[in-house]
C-alpha cells in the first residue's frame, strides 16, 4: 500500500531529470540541466527555475526565464457579456481588427503578457461583440493558442512519450500510433516478473514502454540488428538505475549460432583477431617495461652527475614513456570493453538458451516474417506474441507461414481506429480530423509443436477449417 506521507520529494523536479514539456497538444522531451537553453514552440528559455518545483506545474516564459504561473486565471470572460445571435450582419471586409501587425509586435516587445495582448485584440475588434457566444469563445481560444507563452513540465510516461513520438517523429517509430502500442502491451500480456523478448526499431519507445510495464521485475532481452541497440527513447523515460539491471541485449546476427548451439561466449571469443591484437599490445607493453627497468637508475645517475646532455635525453625518454603509457591505457580500455561485451552476450545467451521466454514483441522496419519465425523459437508454449507492421501485407505473409508451420493458435490480424471527440455544451461532435492509420498487429499464442508431423510436410493453405471439418464429422 502507498504510504500516506506528505513527502513530495518524488513529485519534485530535480536537476538531471528527464522531463516532457507540454504546450497545448505539443510535447517535447528534454533533460533538466543547469544553464541549458531549450527551444520549444518557437520560444527559447532556460530550465533552471523548474528545479525544485512540482511536476505538472505550468510556467510562464518571461524573456527566457520560467516563472511559476499564478493560480489558474479562470476563463476570463469578457466583462460585457454581449453577444450576437447569428452572423447575418457580419461582413468580412478585413478591417475588423484595428490593431496592425506592427502594433501587435510593439505590444509583444513591451513585454505584455499573452493574456493582455488578447484583451487588446478583443477590444480592438469591431465585430467581436456581434459574434455569437460560441464564436467569441472560439476566437479567444485561437488567440490564446497564439499569444499565451506558457509551458507545462510533465513527468514522462508511456502515454506521453507515445503521443509525443507519434506527433513529432512518426517516421522514427514506424508510424506506430499510441493506441496500437497500447494494444501491443496488453496483447503480449506484459507484466512484472516475466521474461520478454523485444525486437524494435522504434527509437527505444517500445522497449521503454515494455520496461515501464514491468516495473523493474523480470527481464527484458532486446534483440538488436546491426552494431548495437538504439535506446534514445528509453532515456526519455528516466527510469531509476535498477530498471537497467533487468535489461539485456543480444545481436540478431548471433541468433542462428545460438539456435544451432555453436555460439561461443567463452573468454577466448569474440574473435581470434581481436584477441591477437590485444596480445600483441600486451607484448608491446611488456617490452618497453623491460627496457625501462634500467632507465630510472641511469637517469638518476645522470642527474646526480649534473650532466647537461642528460636533459634532452630525459625529455625524449619521458615522452616515449608517456606514449607507451597512453598506448597501454588504450589497449587496456579496449580489453575491458571487449570483456564487458562478451559478458553481456554470455548473460543474454544464457537467458535465451532455455527457450522459455514469456512474451515476444516485434515492431521494426524489417520484414516481420523472418524476424518472427526466428524469434518465436525462444518462447515457451502457451505464451503470447505480438508483431507490429506499418503495412498489412507482410503480416498476411506471417499469418500464412504460421498457419503452415503450426505451433501457434489464436492468430489475429487487427488494427484499431482512434476517434477523438470535442465535448462542449451544445457543441459535441467527433474531432474533424482523425488519424489515417496507426499500423497493423498480428497477435497469437504459442503452443507445443507437434513432434509427429514431419518438418516441411505439404499442408493445405488453410488447415484450420479442414481440420475442423474432420473433427466435426467425428463429433
Amino acid at each position, binding site marked *: 500500500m502507498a504510504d500516506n506521507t506528505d513527502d513530495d520529494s518524488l513529485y519534485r523536479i530535480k536537476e538531471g531529470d528527464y522531463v516532457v514539456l507540454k504546450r497545448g497538444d505539443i510535447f517535447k522531451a528534454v533533460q533538466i540541466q543547469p544553464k541549458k537553453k531549450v527551444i520549444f514552440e518557437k520560444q527559447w528559455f532556460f530550465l533552471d527555475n523548474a528545479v525544485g518545483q512540482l511536476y505538472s506545474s505550468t510556467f510562464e516564459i518571461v524573456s527566457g526565464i520560467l516563472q511559476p504561473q499564478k493560480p489558474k486565471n479562470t476563463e476570463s470572460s469578457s466583462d460585457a457579456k454581449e453577444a450576437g445571435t447569428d452572423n447575418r450582419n457580419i461582413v468580412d471586409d478585413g478591417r475588423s481588427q484595428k490593431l496592425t501587425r506592427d502594433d501587435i509586435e510593439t505590444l509583444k516587445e513591451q513585454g505584455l503578457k499573452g493574456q493582455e495582448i488578447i484583451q487588446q485584440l478583443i477590444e480592438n475588434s469591431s465585430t467581436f461583440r456581434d459574434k455569437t457566444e460560441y464564436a467569441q469563445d472560439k476566437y479567444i481560444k485561437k488567440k490564446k493558442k497564439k499569444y499565451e507563452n506558457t509551458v507545462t513540465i510533465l513527468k514522462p510516461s508511456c502515454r506521453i512519450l507515445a503521443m509525443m513520438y507519434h506527433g513529432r517523429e512518426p517516421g522514427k517509430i514506424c508510424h506506430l500510433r499510441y493506441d496500437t502500442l497500447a494494444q501491443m502491451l496488453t496483447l503480449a500480456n506484459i507484466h512484472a516478473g516475466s521474461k520478454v523478448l523485444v525486437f524494435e526499431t522504434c527509437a527505444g519507445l517500445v522497449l521503454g514502454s515494455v520496461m515501464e510495464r514491468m516495473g523493474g521485475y523480470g527481464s527484458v532481452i532486446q534483440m538488436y540488428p546491426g552494431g548495437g541497440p538504439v535506446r534514445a527513447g528509453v532515456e526519455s523515460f528516466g527510469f531509476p538505475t535498477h530498471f537497467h539491471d533487468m535489461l539485456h541485449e543480444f545481436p540478431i546476427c548471433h541468433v542462428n549460432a545460438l539456435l544451432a548451439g555453436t555460439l561461443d561466449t567463452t573468454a577466448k571469443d569474440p574473435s581470434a583477431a581481436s584477441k591477437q591484437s590485444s596480445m600483441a599490445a600486451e607484448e608491446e607493453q611488456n617490452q618497453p617495461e623491460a627496457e625501462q627497468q634500467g632507465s630510472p637508475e641511469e637517469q638518476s645517475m645522470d642527474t646526480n652527475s649534473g650532466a647537461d646532455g642528460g636533459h634532452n635525453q630525459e625529455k625524449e625518454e619521458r615522452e616515449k614513456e608517456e606514449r607507451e603509457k597512453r598506448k597501454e591505457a588504450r589497449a587496456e580500455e579496449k580489453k575491458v570493453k571487449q570483456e564487458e561485451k562478451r559478458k553481456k552476450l554470455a548473460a543474454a545467451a544464457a537467458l535465451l538458451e532455455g527457450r522459455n521466454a514469456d512474451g515476444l514483441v516485434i515492431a521494426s522496419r524489417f520484414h516481420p516474417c523472418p524476424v518472427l519465425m526466428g524469434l518465436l523459437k525462444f518462447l515457451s508454449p502457451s505464451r503470447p506474441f505480438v508483431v507490429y507492421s506499418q503495412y498489412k501485407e507482410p503480416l498476411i505473409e506471417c499469418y500464412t507461414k504460421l498457419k503452415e508451420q503450426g505451433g501457434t493458435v489464436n492468430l489475429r490480424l487487427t488494427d484499431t481506429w482512434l*476517434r477523438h471527440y470535442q465535448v462542449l455544451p451544445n457543441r459535441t461532435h467527433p474531432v474533424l480530423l482523425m488519424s489515417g492509420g496507426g499500423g497493423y498487429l498480428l497477435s497469437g499464442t504459442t503452443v507445443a509443436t507437434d513432434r509427429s508431423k514431419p518438418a516441411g510436410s505439404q499442408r493445405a493453405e488453410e488447415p484450420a477449417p479442414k481440420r475442423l471439418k474432420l473433427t466435426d464429422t467425428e463429433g
Partner: protein
Amino acid sequence: MSFVEYSDLIQDGDVAIVYLNHESMVPVKVQQGAQTQTRYGVIRHSTDLIGQRYGSKVTCSKGGWVYVLHPTPELWTVTLPHRTQILYTTDIATITMMLELKPGSIVCESGTGSGSLSHAILRTIAPTGHLHTVEFHQQRAEKAAEEFKEHRVDHLVTVRNQDVCKEGFGVTGVADAVFLDIPSPWEAVRHAKAAMKKQGGRVCSFSPCIEQVQRTCEALADQGFEEISTLEVLLRVHDVRTVSLPLPDFGPDPSAQTQPDSTEKTPPGQASVSLKTTTPPREIPGHTGYLTFATKPRT
C-alpha cells in the same frame, strides 16, 4: 498458475483455458478426479491436465484434441461467465495506457461487474500495487471476490459492496488512477477526486451514450480536472484468405502474334488470378463506449 505469474505446469486448483478452435475456448477449473466434456470427447483432469505443460495438446476420448492454455486476462475476457456487459481487450488496452497503470499503481474501480477489466488491472499493477473495486450488487461483489481468490490474485484486491455514487470508494487520498463504468459517472466524480492522491493522478470513465459523456465532462471540469479528453477506439479484425478473381474472355485476339513456341494456355473461361488478401468480417462491433480521460491536478 496465477493471473499475475506464469508457470509451466498445470496444477490441481488452476484455472486453465481449453482451446477448442478459433471461435471457442472454455475456462476449466482443474481438479483431481474431475472431467470436462467437450465436443471432441472427455478430458480427464488427473491424467490429461495435472502435471502437463501449459500449451500442450490434449487428446480427448473421441480421438479429437484440444490445446490447454495458461490463463491470461485477455483469454479470461473472452471466456469468462458474463454477469454484466463487459469491457473487451481493445478498450482495456487503451484504458491501461491512458491511466498510466504500472506495477505499484493504486487503482480504484467501479463497478466490478464481471471482473473483465479488474483482472487486466491486477495483472498490470502486481506485485506491489492494489485495486480497490466497488460493486453495489451484492451477489456480483461476492462472486468477484470468490473469483479473485480462485485466480490467486486476492492479495492485490479489495472488493467493497457499496454504492459508489453515495459512499465513494472506501479509501481517500491513495489512488493513482480511478476508473468508472457506471450508469451515472458524473455522480461519482467527486468521490473519484477524494479517493485520489493529493499529488494528482488520472481518471477514466466509460459510457456508451454521448449524453452521459457530456454530463461527466461537465462534472470533471467543475471538480477542477484538467486535460479532459474523450475518445473511442474501434477494433478491426482482418480475415486472411486466398481469393481468386476470374479473368474475362475477350475471345481470340487476331492482332496478337501467335508465336510458334507459345505453350498451351489455360482454356478460356477458366483463367483466373488468385491472391492473398484480407476481408473484413460481415459485421463488426461499431461502438462499445466512449472513453473520457482526465487528469486530477495537485490539490
